[in-house]
């Protein structure tokens, strides 16, 4: 393979940023040398005096997983499994609400809709990671990224193939719902697809114009619950909007914690998330408002009868939310090491809230006719 604009040292290869070789190395994770294809990862970006930018590629030996458990663990990290709660929990809560109201779910359609939504989210997560890696946003040492390229677990080419497979399967899984309710599902599906594409688009990029939070609130909240309700039951079941609002706010909080942590990096590359625009302490206050808002909506929904009293079980998830908010206020700033793991905690809060909300709604079925 002919190498242009390259200089080779023992462990590093420098390639001009927009060269064919550099783009290929970024996309595939390999560079052709006289000794054959070498697995590499982008390790640094250097601006030369000539005005050119050079990418430093370092040898990235593939690290074999010792056993199936380790392989599975790597896969779950790559797809950011912890974030899938944002899609799964609203669907389960709506399913429960429909059952409570006596609706009969179209089980096969419901399952395929959930699988479809999860696969689409996995595809978005993976494509987002590749996009950030190829744009050199997630170089070693940056706070974002799943780290799978750097650790030599996967090449970008492998991740892209998994993403494309997940995307195709996700669309296929949505076909039963589409056949059952074509207009409604097309509408919701189009909104979801548009949102997913625009979220990290090069120019429009909602997440880079402080609209990511709003997009996530809608797509992982009311849009998701409405779409799932239509797909599963053919209509809007009671509580679909409050469930969407509560879990949408918690999904928004998860994104917000992530952006809060990445604030300095986002600012340095001109990406304008809501957190980086308003600053650290206002972001911490906004997080408190999100969790407080979710709690308030839950309370009002129960008060108005939109949700059963037992749905208040989900309030227990606000205890770790309060602790997380305090931890964020107590940290020195976005780069504080005490924020490590905060996004995982935010994801756990969403998961626990979703589980408790679902169980709370379901349990009302057994207490019908009593105080619930």
């Amino acid at each position: 393979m002919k190498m242009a604009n390259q200089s080779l040292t023992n462990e590093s290869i420098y390639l001009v940023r927009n060269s064919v070789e550099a783009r290929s190395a970024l996309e595939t994770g390999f560079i052709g040398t006289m000794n054959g294809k070498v697995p590499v990862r982008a390790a640094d970006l250097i601006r030369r005096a000539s005005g050119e930018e050079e990418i430093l590629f370092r040898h990235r030996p593939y690290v074999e997983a010792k056993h199936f458990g380790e392989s599975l663990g790597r896969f779950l990290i790559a797809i950011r499994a912890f974030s899938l709660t944002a899609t799964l929990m609203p669907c389960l809560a709506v399913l429960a609400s429909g059952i409570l109201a006596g609706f009969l779910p179209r089980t096969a359609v419901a399952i395929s809709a959930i699988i479809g939504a999860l696969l689409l989210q996995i595809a978005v997560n993976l494509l987002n990671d590749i996009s950030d890696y190829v744009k050199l946003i997630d170089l070693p040492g940056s706070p974002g990224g799943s780290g799978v390229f750097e650790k030599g677990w996967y090449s970008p080419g492998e991740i892209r193939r998994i993403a494309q497979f997940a995307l195709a399967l996700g669309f296929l899984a949505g076909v039963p719902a589409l056949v059952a309710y074509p207009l409604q599902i097309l509408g919701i599906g189009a909104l979801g697809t548009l949102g997913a594409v625009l979220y990290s688009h090069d120019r429009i990029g909602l997440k880079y114009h402080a609209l990511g939070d709003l997009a996530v609130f809608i797509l992982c909240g009311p849009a998701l619950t409405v779409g799932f309700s239509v797909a599963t039951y053919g209509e809007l079941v009671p509580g679909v909007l409050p469930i969407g609002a509560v879990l949408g706010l918690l999904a928004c909080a998860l994104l917000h914690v992530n952006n809060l942590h990445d604030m300095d990096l986002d600012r340095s590359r001109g990406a304008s998330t809501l957190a980086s625009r308003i600053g650290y302490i206002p972001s911490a206050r906004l997080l408190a408002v999100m969790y407080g808002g979710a709690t308030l909506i839950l309370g009002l929904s129960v008060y108005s009868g939109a949700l059963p009293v037992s749905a208040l079980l989900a309030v227990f998830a606000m205890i770790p939310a309060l602790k997380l908010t305090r931890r964020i206020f107590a940290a020195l700033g976005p780069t504080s090491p005490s924020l490590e793991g905060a996004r995982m905690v935010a994801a756990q809060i969403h998961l626990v809230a979703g589980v408790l909300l679902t169980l709370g709604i379901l349990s009302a079925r057994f207490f019908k006719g009593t105080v619930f």
Partner: protein
Amino acid sequence: MSVFKTSSETWGSPWLDPAIYELEETGSLPGLENLMNRSVLRGGKRLRPILMGEFAGLFGLSADRVKPFARAAEQVHSATLAHDDVIDASETRRGIRTLNARIENRRAVLGGDYLLAEGIFHVARQGHFKVVEALSETLRELVTGELLQNEARGMDEVTEAHLLRIADLKTGSLFRWCCSVPALLLDSSPEVLRLVRDFATRLGVAFQWIDDALDYSKESGKPYGQDLREGLVNEVTRRLIEKFPESRDSVKSILQNESEFSLPWSETQIATEVENVRQSARSQLETARRILADLRVVLRREEHPASDESMARVEKILEKLERREK
């Protein structure tokens, strides 16, 4: 014996004269000044003044021109060491009793503040606003780095991003100032300043990583695994935890002083990661060399009389750093 004291003909030997850095025992606090001259201002590689001196040569400035700033750089560095010694309750540094081992902590902290004030005062007296502005930015970065590092004390979940940031703030910031001073004195172009700062940043990170590698060296003259004993995860430790996740719990209890100091890795495992970290440091230095080559081109383009001798000596500093065993 500092690794940089190899040849008085090759190195900027004037920078090794301790008299440059000593506080003059003037009116108010001669006792404290004398104490600091005998403790925190003694010894050391004087890398920062040497760097500044060589960069002065690159820009055609004499050593005397930058001497006040070089002195201030070493005083600022020593002030941070004095504060570190209080935080870590260290009794000796470079084989010499620390300031806090001689006087109570409160006075040692104030002594460090006094040294800082001295450095800033003498820089300000030179009358170059941009240099003062850059120094104030450096101090802010230094303190930020110290605060972030202190916050991570006792924590095992420390990321590479965090350690890189601390290396950049704690070590890279003062290197950046030292290398930038000659350029600032001559009102150099933004391109020159950018290259100088980029160079110094890579140097700072490389220096810190080599320091982290030496923390696990029995020949370095420092206590083995000192960072871990002080509750800090360095880059070698971080990679060991990442590679051997089963060791995390043991490391956590060491970091939080809940168990005796007994490393959960074999010597071979440690040696492998030490070499990997050194390799990463070499990669940073390789990048620093490329930036230095660019700087040479730009300086010539801008008609600065860049001294070939100084350029060669800066490259020699990089080589020495790469081979540093102490």
